[in-house]
């Protein structure tokens, strides 16, 4: 009687098995302390990007030439730059730009990369050869050089930086997705649904995509770090966000001239880049461990 009622109960209010699965992944992620720190920092960054600019005492372009190149103090936590602007406030203002570049460029790259990778891996043959050689061409350029080229052709501004960074991230996604697709499409369950009469579209969206999703997510997280770094590099070279935008790479570039007299002008934007990149990297690593397909056993 008792057993019957529990079966009845579990049937009347079914817990969503997919939510249960997500909970399990989160549980594994929680065990990884480094990843949790990374994840926590990322959340903090996002929060900062949204509400930070309203909390800091100075505006992003607020100059005070009397107080230029001052070291860190209670008044100016990270000191001031050559125009007397508060570096702490500028870094907080720059957070949203950094994250915008990181997320948006990776989002664009992921969409193109995943489409190219799946088509390449699933259909194979000539399409595969063509697409992969194209990716090889992109990969043959050093990332920053490729981004430089794209920005130079288009015009140095923030949106073109995003585009440039996206272009050089596409091959990374395409190759990973192609590899995973090749592995997944040989599995018997793909044959099973094909034997049931499923078409290519259904197989790709219902069966291949969900099973190559983990490497995509991990790659995206890690790629955000690379994208931020590359974008900062472009700005540093003067081909990214233009002054007076409080972009960290551009701030670093400004500070370069005073590196011996007032090292903090370059130091703090540099540290900010390091912390954000590190956070995304360790979170990505932790995510990879938690999403590892071997977890199923």
């Amino acid at each position, binding site marked *: 009687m008792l057993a019957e009622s529990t079966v009845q109960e579990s*049937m009347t209010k079914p817990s969503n098995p997919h939510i249960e699965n997500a909970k399990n992944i989160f549980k594994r992620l929680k065990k990884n302390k480094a990843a949790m720190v990374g994840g926590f920092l990322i959340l903090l960054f996002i929060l900062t990007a949204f509400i930070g600019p309203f909390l800091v005492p100075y505006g992003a372009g607020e100059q005070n030439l009397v107080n230029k190149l001052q070291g860190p103090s209670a008044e100016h936590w990270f000191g001031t730059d050559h125009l007397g602007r508060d570096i702490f406030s500028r870094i907080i203002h720059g957070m949203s730009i950094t994250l915008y570049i990181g997320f948006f460029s990776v989002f664009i790259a992921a969409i193109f990369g995943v489409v190219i990778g799946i088509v390449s891996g699933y259909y194979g043959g000539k399409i595969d050869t063509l697409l992969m050689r194209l990716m090889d061409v992109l990969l043959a350029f050093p990332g920053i050089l490729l981004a430089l080229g794209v920005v130079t052709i288009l015009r140095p501004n923030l949106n073109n930086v995003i585009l440039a960074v996206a272009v050089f991230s596409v091959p990374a996604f395409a190759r990973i997705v192609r590899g995973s697709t090749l592995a997944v499409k040989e*599995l018997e*369950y793909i044959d099973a649904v094909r034997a049931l009469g499923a078409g290519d579209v259904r197989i790709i969206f219902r069966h291949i995509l969900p099973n190559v999703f983990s490497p995509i997510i991990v790659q995206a997280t890690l790629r955000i770090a690379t994208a931020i770094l590359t974008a900062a590099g472009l700005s540093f070279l003067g081909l990214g966000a233009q002054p007076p935008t409080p972009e960290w790479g551009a701030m670093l570039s400004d500070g370069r001239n005073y590196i011996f007299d007032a090292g903090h002008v370059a130091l703090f934007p540099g540290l900010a880049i390091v912390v954000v990149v590190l956070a995304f990297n360790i979170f990505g690593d932790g995510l990879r461990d938690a999403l590892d397909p071997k977890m199923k056993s």
Partner: protein
Amino acid sequence: MTTKLLEVNNLKQYFPIKGGVFGRTVNHVKAVDDVSFYVNEGETLSIVGESGCGKSTTGRAVLRLDEPTEGDIQFNGENLLDLNKNDMRKKRKDMQIIFQDPYASINPRQTVRQVLEEAMAIQDVVPKADRVDKMMELLDTVGLGSHQLDRFPHEFSGGQRQRVGIARALAVDPKFIICDESVSALDVSIQAQVLNLLKNLQEQYNLTYLFIAHDLGVVRHISDRVAVMYLGRVVEIGEKEEIFDNPKHPYTKSLLSAIPVPDPSHKQERIVLKGDVPSPIDPPPGCRFHTRCPFATEKCRDETPELRKTETMTGTHEAACHYMEDIEAGRHKAAY
């Protein structure tokens, strides 16, 4: 009168080997080379043979999971190879496959509900409103509980997963099921359960099986007729009793002599073959078995033996050997 549900004629499945810088086709793996057989409605035909002999490839070719190179496949009087993609898709409702590896044959991201729902949705066999009832019925049929409907594959054991695979195949009400080594990956005790389940389902739904296996004990248990394959060809085919008790082809004999007999006083003449299976890229001319056959002669090297029947064979029993009568009469002796 029995009717042939499936008839395969001169089936060839060659896989190209790409080589060189430009990916030219340099050669072919002749995985299945001129194979013909038929399966009567409601019966079980087993295909046996060692690994790499083309059993699974034959099964996959019949379902057009790989496009066959040549031949024709008559299913219910219709040549499957003439059908276009769309018609073939509809035809797939009638023919299903159960795979070997229960761990790889179900999408790990789908629950049993989704697996079964999708099967019915693709072929649109059951109206949407009745699908849940049908799922419950299917689970009950294959011996799973309805409370297991919302579970993921990794929550099941191997035997249970195989039952899910069977339920998926049954979801579209097929007439014909290919069991591709369907019990090989299971424990012996579970094997027996799944085999009995398959047998019951056959009676219940009048299913026709093409059973691909390498375990002769399993084959003996489930088959009506047996085809023995060697290196892409059928060397002997016939009723189960004939194949097991009256084998004619030297290869079949050696294969059968490998079955252990659970009787310590039983003196068994074990025929051990020499050498390895030759490569299917460049199979030996004439009789493909001549490189390992103790009875082989010049003739075997030059002439390809056809499947034929001798006086001592009954039923549909046929074998492909030049020297069947001579070996039987003792006129032709083994070389080793």
